[in-house]
């Protein structure tokens, strides 16, 4: 199970650059980052899955907290989370395969959002595993292209919003 860090930063390309730069420079074993908007247009939330066997989440947090553009680092390690990924999958689809693809999409609660002369675009959302599995099943039709948003996450049940400016509050 990955250990999720939710990092709220200022919404700018420069801030993203600073975070990515730091992770690369410190050779911290992070291989994926989702960049999400939040309720505040001034903020971005980065979701970073960390494998605790490879990296100490506290060290990553301590490094991130040195950046002025970082407003809060929340360690969601043990919290119950809703995690949703989303993908658009363009599949090679002569008309005789439409029914089969539609049935598969139905099974994954996915939707067909574009019908072209030779292709369909399938939109699938759900857990990371579910999106992985759906893409894998579509492979046999011939996947032309996949674009994936990356996981979004939120803590279940908790009534308060994720602190977006913990650092300013603590200072």
């Amino acid at each position: 199970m990955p250990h999720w860090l939710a990092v709220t930063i200022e919404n700018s390309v420069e801030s993203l650059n600073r975070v990515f730069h730091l992770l690369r420079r410190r050779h911290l074993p992070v291989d994926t980052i989702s960049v999400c908007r939040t309720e505040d247009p001034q903020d971005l939330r980065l979701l970073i899955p960390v494998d605790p066997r490879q990296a100490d989440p506290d060290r990553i947090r301590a490094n991130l907290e040195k950046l002025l553009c970082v407003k809060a680092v929340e360690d969601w390690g043990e919290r119950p989370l809703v995690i949703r990924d989303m993908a658009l999958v363009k599949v090679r689809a002569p008309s005789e395969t439409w029914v089969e693809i539609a049935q598969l999409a139905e099974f994954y609660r996915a939707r067909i959002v574009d019908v072209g002369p030779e292709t369909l675009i399938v939109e699938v959302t759900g857990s990371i595993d579910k999106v992985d599995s759906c893409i894998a099943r579509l492979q046999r039709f011939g996947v032309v292209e996949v674009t994936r948003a990356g996981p979004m996450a939120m803590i279940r049940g908790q009534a308060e919003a994720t602190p977006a400016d913990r650092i300013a509050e603590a200072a």
Partner: protein
Amino acid sequence: MEATTIAQTQVAPRTIRRERRRMKTAWAVMEALVREGVEVIFGVPGGASLPLYDALYDYPQIRHVLVRHEQCAIHMAEGYARATGRPGVCFTTSGPGATNLVTGLTDAMMDSTPVVAITGQVPTFFMGGDAFQEADVIGLTMSVTKHNWLVRTPAKAVEAVHTAFRLATDGRPGPVLVDLPRDVLLAETEFAFEDPQAFRPARPRPSFPDEEALRRAADLIAGSQRPILYVGGGAIHSGAAPEIRALAEKARIPVTTTLMGLGAFPEDHPYSLKMLGMHGTVYANFAINFSDLIIAVGARFDDRVTGKLSAFAPHAKVIHIDIDPAEINKNRKADVALIGDAKQVLRALLPMVRPPDTEAWWRQIQDWKARYPLRYRQGDDVIKPQFAIQMIYELTKEYRPIVTIDVGQHQMWAAQFFTWTEPRTCITSGGLGTMGFSLPAAVGAQFGRPDRLVININGDGSFQMTFQALITAVEWRLPIKVFIINNQYLGMVRQWQELFYNRRYSAVYLANPDFARLAEAVGAAGIRVERPDQVEPAIRQALAITDRPVVVDILVDPEENCFPMIPSGMTVFDMMVAPGVKATP
């Protein structure tokens, strides 16, 4: 020592008034620097920074020291900061001016030195278009500064400068950079000046160690049999020397320091084991490796200290005191982490400390000390570098000099053969190992401390990397004493080639100029020393010259090696005291 031409009462920050005034950004930046108490700026002007220099013309209370290369400017700023504890400031123009700072910024980042670099930038309407002398300075320096600012609007300029000063010195000190486009510098607007302290950026304050953590640390100390204090540069930044001494004396704990920590504990104290690590003393390295408790104070378990990390001090528990939470568990896992300013943490810990029984431990250490003192043999013909350095120490110690040291064999010999007793008197490039650091650093140190004798111990290779700082020193009539330990080799590289590359000396011989005549040519005094009996008179002669810099070129044994030595990536059991001779515990 005679007062120098730069002697000046320290500029106190001007009385802080909240006020609004209309002016051009360049003048507002100068106002902000005055409010920060800046007394000296090291730099070189250029196209993009012309407005700053135009404004500087109106601020005669800030001295500007013109360097001949921007790398010298930032090393001077570092030397100033290391000698005084106050941030050093440098100015450069855009493009090549700014890129020449990169080495110094990296050096300051590695050694946690507070430096504020202010760079000109091409006008905002040219930025991104490969304009003449444009460089992506923010991108280039992002990983070698604590933070950097590109000021896109005049309104942000004063805030950026004040925030830069706060960040440079807050927490773990380090370099910062403010990039100022020319059109922004020339724009006129109304500026609001406030207390510079109001610009402290919101940062997480790690909670000070709680009673429980301090109690666990005290228990570890009380229960230890073979404790050791391992003290680094953080102790100097923090001013923790008195507390370290109090802890050592209260609990009878031996103290070793890193290269950066030299001076944090007096080496003439019976509890001192001097420096540890690759070229540290045998007894310091044995002591830390056989210890059962390491109390690390502002030190980061650098590879030059630990050698092979997995085999380093295998039986020791670790109490790690550091102001930077990102240092905890980075290289060595801490059993107790005490995050905070070293001085404050030690003050809180001291009353809880109960002395352990270290009698047997001290007998063991005394045995190592007796068996493995630092040594060399000086004959009648060739000058041994260790002898030259020891003589420099003996003949200057009464002046309590500030010593800047370059990088290489002479650096390690100076670390070994000086007796370091005072914080901020040993200034050297520790983390980055920047050859060429020490001569400009000596200039900066002398500006920061005009009341003290400043000595530079340099190598013949490293002297030639930033020789032009001597011209600046002459211009300001700084009475710096430069001692070149001249072995006509890149000595440390040659030593490694001798020991680990089968004596294949590849690109290490230096066809040197006559350094004494070179010094005379730029207006400094030059003395050349070739025989052992000339060393003492030359040092005395150098000390007598107080109206300009002196370069003493000391020709030493070209193939002398620096021992003890733990080869890179190896352990204390591989520690050589002479070629092929290992120390045995």
